[in-house]
């Protein structure tokens, strides 16, 4: 109890709050920061109109045309001429397909409504997704219907047509065929597709003198090279997190950034049940707050460059514990260890690891150099983890060189006139190449430049020809996951515009007539163990897209077709994983000594010695999702920033530099500089600045910025100070304040629940969040008991609450409830994106976020605790908790929000008159008001395409209407309908709201609390289950499970 008390006094939501800043006071006293709550007509409002995200309009309700029934317009019904077998009009269907990013695939299950995909979920059968889904993959559905996508062929930036292009192409190809592809270069992104790899091989044999270069910003070359140093060529290291009791996450993020992150998250989450008596313990040592850092039991902020000496020190300490390690390297001098908390960490970590040999795991992030990976592998092997918590897979040995080196070579070849023809497939090097290459200028020296891409972006602007690329959801393709599992990507709809996929364009260049479908089918059948020769002879299956039922599989005319239909239906081909190399042994290698600068304690760092790291903030990736408003508006899970990137500084660095949040600074290094705003992030290592890539796009579109359309771009491009030789970190940055200010839209102080006074904050933080250590929890399981934290009203009968306007009774058979396990939430934001796409949540725009008017129904509250330089973070998902005793209902003058017999807090949009009383009275601030018609943009015909994503089972909300989480009422109804059709009672697990469905660690569980055996009932019965603001007698249907950290006693006091 004493530890809780002392911690309780330390919770704070932001530095402003800690500093009792007047800005936070503003949030406390008013619901919205801006007093002038509605000031339309400004320039920024027009900007906001441009920024409307993916959401729909009011169909064709153009006034009172009394030619139709009642008050609305006449509607037409257009039935099929021939209805496809198995199609039930008005019902959704799911199809298995793939999402490929960075050369790895993730299995998807895409919901389609009458031929238009509307929602992306994870394929439960796919090992890299297990039913969960990453934020990027989910958001890609909005990209499919982005009206800014490239729709026509451009010649020198001007609209052209296929005929003119074909004429140009035949001339060019004639020349290329004659000289064997002399001076022809292809620049593509690394791909997971096996068929594309085959087509690529064919292409290179058709043009033997051509060169193929692969490049993507966040590539995993460091990781691959690390494995190569440690285990030899053709190896890949796979983690088995389920067996790891001690996990050390080193400057990376195995829970979100890794290609197998979803599986890691699941396995990590499965071992976070304190009731089992044992939990895994996660350490994070990192240069930027990652989701693994948020989830960790202990975290050490460390500069990027310091990881090598840290690991060498750890190696030395492990040797001292009697662990046999081959490494000849010396432990860094004691000066390094003395600094900060490093010595204590090394000691405690070595002790814990040595005691858990064969049950521990060290993981390193892709931004760290190959050597550090090799070193971590060496420690893993020495600790006996090989074959237990990690395995070595045998993959094809890497033939191409490091991607950053390769693109550098390409750029210099272009500059020296060695390239006549450049074919760019999907990549956007004019934006994403590092600043030293000046790729755009190099492009000007190439005669023929053909760019295939989803957008007419920066590269397209410089290309001779730009061709629209087919969206991944509209074309046949395939891919292998990180572990090798092969899957087919089937199209969900016909391409919306005349376009080529990468495979189709390469085939066209080779003058081949075969279809991508036939090629993918042949590859898939070969992977499934079929005989490719026999395939040649037989006619291809003509009805593959009907193959999502077992009957369709059985009905296929022959064995190959049955195999094909089955693998398309399931979305995986079993037994296609890369083989585990059981004979893998550690190679002998030595590590170069760390440079002296890295040994410097942060106290000694001067301006000019700072390092800068370049990160992926989980929103726009390398810039390719910059035009996705829903992603741009997603608050970063640590900074809570939307619509921007910023230079993330530790509070002490900011103090040294005398800069504050929102002040512009100039980062200067090697004669190059960039200017961007400061954002102070507690937990950032002192002297290390992190900046997210992918912002400041020049030609992204109406959302991501475009010089052509004169739309300012969100965030700042920092390519200028990046170097291909050290792509993710640079040392020696000089920072100067420019004196300018910039407004950053951070949601961190929005919806501050604390409404009665600032002085109460410590005590009241514990009405919302409760956290303790595993040992404390075992001593005092009832630590979350509300009565310990707040004055508590007497609890009256269950399901019978005295209300202001009469008692409510919950009589129905089903009583819905939810349980959110704070011990399992890693803050990955996937639940918010799931909710956004399922419930047509509009994008409000940066100026609206600045006013506190973001529309997401679900938010992740982030609490810091402890030391400002080295805090812990607690991340708490909060949506409407469906209070049985709901304060919102009692103040609605028109009864637009009221309870159902099943315990749902209904919001009736068509009754709502927009008084916002409910919002004012909601103690958890989970209601969202439509201040504007966020779908106004859909009136223009070019934006109509966005409506194709809209879930037909959810009402589109108009200006002046309140909205909030409904527990996905449409899914509850659908599950009930299915059960009724199948003449069976509802079973536990039949209903999963979008957020719970996509949660990788199963932190969110939904179900019937009347059913004693349901998962949610069992979870809610746990001693650490509590309702937020218990003292108000709200009786929330969503309960939280208190956060338990598995604290290492040796580090508890550090």
């Amino acid at each position: 109890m004493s530890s809780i008390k002392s911690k309780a006094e330390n919770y704070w939501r932001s530095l402003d709050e800690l500093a009792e800043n007047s800005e936070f006071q503003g949030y406390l006293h008013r619901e919205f920061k801006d007093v002038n709550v509605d000031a339309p007509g400004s320039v920024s409002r027009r900007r906001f109109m441009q920024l409307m995200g993916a959401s729909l309009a009011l169909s064709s309700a153009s006034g009172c045309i009394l030619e139709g029934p009642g008050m609305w317009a006449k509607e037409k019904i257009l039935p099929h001429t021939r209805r496809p077998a198995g199609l039930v009009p008005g019902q959704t269907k799911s199809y298995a397909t793939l999402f490929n990013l960075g050369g790895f695939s993730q299995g998807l299950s895409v919901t389609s409504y009458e031929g238009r995909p509307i929602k992306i979920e994870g394929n439960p059968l796919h090992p890299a997704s297990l039913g969960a889904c990453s934020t990027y993959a989910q958001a890609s559905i909005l990209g499919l219907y982005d009206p800014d996508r490239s729709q026509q062929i451009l010649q020198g930036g001007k609209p052209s047509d296929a005929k003119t292009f074909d004429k140009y192409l035949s001339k060019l190809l004639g020349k290329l065929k004659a000289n064997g592809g002399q001076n022809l270069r292809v620049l593509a992104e690394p791909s997971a597709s096996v068929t594309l790899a085959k087509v690529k091989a064919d292409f290179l044999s058709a043009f033997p003198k051509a060169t193929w270069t692969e490049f993507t910003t966040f590539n995993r070359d460091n990781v691959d090279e690390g494995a190569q140093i440690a285990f030899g060529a053709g190896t890949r290291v796979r983690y088995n997190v389920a067996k790891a009791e001690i996990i050390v996450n080193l400057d990376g993020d195995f829970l979100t950034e890794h290609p197998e992150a979803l599986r890691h998250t699941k396995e990590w989450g499965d071992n976070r049940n304190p009731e089992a008596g044992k939990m895994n313990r996660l350490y994070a040592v990192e240069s930027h707050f990652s989701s693994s850092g948020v989830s960790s039991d202990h975290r050490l902020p460390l500069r990027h460059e310091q990881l090598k000496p840290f690991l060498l020190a750890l190696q030395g300490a492990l040797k001292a514990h009697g662990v046999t390690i081959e490494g000849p390297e010396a432990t860094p001098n004691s000066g390094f260890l003395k600094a900060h908390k490093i010595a204590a960490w090394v000691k405690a970590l070595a002790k814990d690891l040595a005691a858990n040999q064969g049950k521990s795991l060290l993981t390193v992030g892709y931004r760290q150099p190959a050597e550090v990976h090799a070193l971590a592998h060496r420690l893993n092997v020495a600790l006996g983890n090989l074959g237990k918590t990690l395995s070595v897979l045998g993959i094809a040995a890497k033939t191409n060189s490091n991607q950053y080196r390769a693109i550098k070579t390409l750029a210099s070849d272009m500059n020296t006139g060695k390239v006549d023809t450049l074919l760019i497939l999907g990549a956007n090097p004019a934006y994403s190449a590092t600043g030293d290459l000046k790729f755009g200028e190099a492009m000007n020296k190439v005669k023929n430049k053909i760019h295939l891409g989803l957008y007419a972006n920066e590269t397209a602007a410089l290309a001779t020809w730009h061709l629209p690329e087919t969206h991944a959801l509209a074309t046949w393709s395939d891919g292998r996951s990180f572990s090798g599992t092969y899957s087919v990507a089937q199209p969900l709809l016909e391409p919306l515009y005349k376009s080529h996929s990468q495979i189709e364009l390469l085939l066209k260049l080779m003058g081949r007539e075969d279809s991508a479908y036939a090629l993918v089918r042949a590859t898939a059948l070969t992977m499934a163990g079929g005989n490719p020769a026999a395939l040649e002879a037989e006619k291809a299956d003509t009805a593959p897209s009907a193959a999502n039922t077992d009957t369709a599989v059985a009905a296929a005319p022959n064995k190959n077709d049955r195999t094909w239909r089955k693998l398309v239906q399931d979305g995986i081909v079993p037994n296609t994983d890369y083989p585990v190399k059981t004979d893998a042994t550690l190679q002998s290698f030595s590590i170069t000594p760390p440079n002296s600068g890295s040994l410097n304690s942060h106290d000694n760092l001067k301006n000019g010695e700072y390092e800068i790291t370049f990160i992926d903030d989980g929103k726009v990736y390398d810039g390719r999702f910059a035009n996705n408003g829903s992603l741009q508006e997603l608050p970063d899970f640590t900074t809570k920033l939307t619509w921007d990137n910023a230079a993330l500084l530790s509070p002490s660095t900011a103090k040294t530099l005398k800069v504050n949040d929102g002040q512009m600074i100039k980062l200067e290094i090697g004669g190059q500089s960039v200017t961007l705003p400061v954002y102070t992030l507690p937990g950032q290592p002192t002297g290390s600045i992190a900046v997210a890539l992918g912002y400041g796009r020049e030609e992204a579109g109406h959302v991501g910025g475009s010089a052509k359309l004169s739309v300012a771009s969100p965030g700042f491009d920092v390519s200028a100070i990046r170097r291909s030789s050290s792509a993710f970190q640079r040392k020696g940055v000089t920072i100067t304040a420019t004196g300018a200010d910039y407004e950053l839209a951070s949601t961190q102080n929005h919806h501050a629940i604390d409404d009665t006074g600032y002085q109460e904050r410590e005590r009241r933080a514990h009405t919302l969040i409760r956290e303790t250590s595993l040992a404390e929890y075992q001593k005092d399981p009832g630590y979350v008991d509300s009565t310990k934290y707040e004055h508590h009203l007497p609890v009256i009968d269950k399901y019978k609450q005295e209300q202001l306007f009469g008692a409510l009774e919950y009589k129905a058979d089903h009583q819905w409830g939810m349980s959110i396990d704070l011990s399992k939430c890693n803050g990955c934001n996937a639940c918010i994106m799931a909710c956004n796409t399922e419930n047509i949540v509009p994008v409000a725009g940066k100026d609206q976020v600045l006013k506190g008017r973001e529309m997401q129904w679900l938010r992740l509250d982030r609490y810091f605790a402890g030391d400002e330089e080295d805090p812990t973070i607690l991340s708490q998902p909060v949506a409407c908790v469906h209070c049985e005793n709901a304060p919102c209902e009692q103040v609605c003058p028109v009864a637009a929000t009221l309870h159902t017999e099943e315990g749902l807090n209904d919001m009736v949009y068509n009754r709502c008159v927009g008084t916002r009383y409910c919002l004012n009275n909601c103690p958890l601030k989970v209601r969202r008001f439509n201040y504007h018609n966020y779908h106004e943009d859909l009136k223009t015909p070019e934006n109509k395409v966005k409506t194709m994503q809209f879930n037909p089972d959810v009402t589109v909300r108009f200006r002046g209407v309140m909205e909030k989480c409904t527990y996905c009422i449409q899914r509850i109804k659908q599950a009930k309908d299915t059960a009724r059709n199948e003449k069976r009672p509802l079973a536990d697990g039949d209903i999963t709201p979008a957020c719970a469905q996509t949660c990788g660690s199963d932190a969110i569980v939904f179900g019937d609390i009347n059913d004693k055996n349901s998962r949610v009932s069992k979870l809610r019965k746990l001693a650490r289950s509590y309702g937020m603001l218990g003292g108000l007698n709200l009786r929330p249907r969503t309960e939280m499970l208190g956060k338990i950290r598995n604290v290492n006693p040796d580090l508890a006091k550090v």
Partner: protein
Amino acid sequence: MSVFQFPPWTNKIKFLVGLAVAGGGFYAFLIVNFGFSPATTDVGYQPTQPVPFSHALHVGELGVDCRYCHTTVEQATHSPIPATQTCMNCHSKIHTESPKLAPVRESWKTGNPIEWVRVHDLPDYAYFNHAAHVTKGVGCVSCHGRVDQMEVVYQHEPLSMGWCLDCHKAPEQHLRPVEHITAMDWKPTDPHLGTKLKELYNVNPSLDCSTCHR
């Protein structure tokens, strides 16, 4: 300090103002009750369809079951308008030259759908589920009227929220054995059958808002 007093001439218009207020109230009452009433605006709505399809002929005389065309009514929320293929099942052999069927043949040939006009049009924020009603013993005739006697389909019931709630509050008046669901002329023989069926089919219609609005 002077106190405001109404000038004497206002006495003359007192009566007129009183009349305007009372009359205005009455006028508003009439407008709301009758002018906006679904009965005024909807019932009897009978748009012209592109094909003069006669339910009276097909259902009434020939005895085709509703579910022959409206196939998924028992499984899905929608009760779909049949595909052109359904029409052509018979009309590729019967009345193959009829000019009335020209749009059907045209659709069959070109693959373009026939553009039917929606008769029963609920607001977009109301989510009606056919299967939920049909499988619980609410007959087609209860909402659609005697379709078997309609040459051209028209809206028979107001389809207003109040009308929905009347039945949700007292469903027993509209229940029938599910095997007679499509029978247009079925009449209960036992006056207590509705109550019995309510028990048997476990019909407890919800009055919660989210039953129909989400």
